[in-house]
């Protein structure tokens, strides 16, 4: 059974008092298998958010069908298995971190000792144990995203839908959220991720779909989509100039062409984190 099944989905929004209509999604079909981290990519206005909202039952499709673990996503029951973190969520500023999780737990049917235990587990998991009694009005952007992830996980869903989970978060917070998503993957939780941070998507997604003007223009396993079949990358360590000369000689004899040769670089993110969080001796 697929985690998400989208079949021939279309969504048309009528414009009030005009004859025009906006087609947000056109004949979209895709499947997300259980345990996968699926990246839904596309420029602004490409239909990503609309697709997510249809999957979550917040918007009804004009045509086609979406299912979550075999259940029609228009049925409220299908949301038993879903946790959702919207882009830039604010939640209720008047609640503390603990109260927020209690509220979401209660609407998912949790109560008593089980709810308290689950709240503590999740606050610990997202690193907000120290801020459990602080109101969300005083949380930083990164903390709000993390409490958002915790509420999404409150009823132990099998599917997480994350819309720009690292938007506006600093690099350290962004890496923490990325690590959490990888942790969810290890636990068998399926993740549908929408993000403009392509480097992060590349790090964590198994499969991606690219939407453009409501159409799915590319879809498949990430490593297959972005690998260049005719090229091979070899990274050498401690190679002396003699060894390199021999390699070049061998390559020129074989007829293969060296396209580029350079010192590998760390990522800017790693460099930034190294500078801002030096290792403690």
């Amino acid at each position, binding site marked *: *059974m697929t985690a998400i099944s989208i079949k021939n989905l279309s969504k048309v*929004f009528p414009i009030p008092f005009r004859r025009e209509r906006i087609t947000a999604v056109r004949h979209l079909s895709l499947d997300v298998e*259980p*345990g996968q981290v699926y990246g839904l990519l596309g420029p602004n206005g490409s239909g990503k958010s609309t697709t997510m*909202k249809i999957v*979550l*039952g*917040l*918007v*009804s499709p004009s045509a086609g069908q979406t299912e979550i*673990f*075999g259940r029609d996503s228009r049925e*409220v*029951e299908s*949301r*038993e*298995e*879903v*946790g*959702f*973190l*919207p*882009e*830039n*969520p*604010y*939640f*209720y500023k*008047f*609640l503390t971190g603990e109260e927020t999780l209690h*509220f*979401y737990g*209660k*609407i*998912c*049917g949790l*109560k008593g000792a089980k709810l308290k235990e689950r709240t503590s*587990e*999740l606050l*610990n*998991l*997202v*690193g907000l144990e120290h801020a459990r009694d602080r109101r969300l009005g005083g949380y930083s952007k990164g903390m709000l995203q993390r409490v*958002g992830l915790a*509420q*999404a*996980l409150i*009823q*132990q869903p*099998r599917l997480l*839908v994350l819309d720009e989970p690292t938007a506006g978060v600093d690099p350290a917070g962004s890496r*923490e959220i990325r*690590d*959490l998503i990888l*942790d969810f993957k290890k*636990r*068998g*939780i399926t993740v549908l991720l929408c993000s403009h941070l392509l480097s992060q998507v590349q790090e964590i997604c198994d499969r991606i779909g690219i939407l453009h003007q409501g159409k799915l223009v590319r879809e498949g396993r990430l490593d297959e989509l972005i690998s260049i079949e005719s090229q091979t990358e070899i990274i050498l360590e401690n190679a002396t100039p003699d060894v390199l000369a021999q390699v070049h000689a061998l390559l020129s004899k074989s007829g293969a062409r060296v396209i580029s040769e350079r010192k590998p670089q760390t990522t800017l993110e790693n460099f930034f984190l190294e500078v801002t969080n030096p290792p403690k001796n």
Partner: protein
Amino acid sequence: MHESTLPARETPSLPPTPRHVFFSPSRIWAIATNTQLELYRLKVFYFLLIFALLIIGSSAFMIDFTFQEQFQLIKDVSLGAMSIFTWLLAVLATAMLLPKDIEDRTLYTILAKPVPRFEYLIGKLLGVLLMLLVSTLLMSVIFVIALYGREQMAIGDTMRAASAMMPGQLQSQLNDIKESTFTWSLIPGIILIYIKAALFASLTLFISTFASSWIFTIMVSVACYFIGHLQGVARDYWLGNGFGSPAASPLARIFLALVALIFPDLQLFNLVDDIVAGNSIKMELFAKTAALGGLYTCIYLLVAYFVFASKEL
């Protein structure tokens, strides 16, 4: 940052266990108590200070009044203020609930959980009704304390003047004072004030399901308040029941019937004026008015659900 404390799902590939129940009072209660908490933490009860000051301030005009007139004034001011404050509170508190949840995207996180839309709406309205109930009770307590304080002052003054009175006159005056202060007949009046506020909370919630902003919601709700109060006068005029008015055309009759159907006649809820004036009202009339208020509250909630159920979020 985190430890691996989240228990791994034991059987992630198994089909989900059906746990969802179609109607859950505990889910509604969770939303209602959260809404109530939101309103309390927005410090809505500051208006109670204004209410208390209004009653204390009205005492400044009582120096030359008889005891009966003083009690009458306290009742008039208190119940009038209670009626306006509960109505205002109902409209202002309800108008921002739905738009704020949509703007902050909090609504998405709630409806992305297994929460049916009708439960969300009932929970929100129930939260406002609970807050209005607490507010009405607190205002009633302030009102009763003010009335009791004035009664004690009146009794003290009467006792001091007792030596100059004829035999039996003292008891008669004390009886007059007690009969003029708090009587149980005021309770139905206060209940009707609450029901009228509940009706407006429901109406405002309905308007906010399709309104583009909370300002628009408040404006339409206030307009409905005036329509509700004036429709009785308009009906009397157009149907030829009062002051030599022309007979209504069939079109006007249809229009009036429609208005009367959509908006309740709010003049009916002014029974409290009769009660303050010392007129007793029939229990049957009170029950009918309360039932009418309850019915309109339910109808507005139902219509709100139909609009909200098909709303694209």
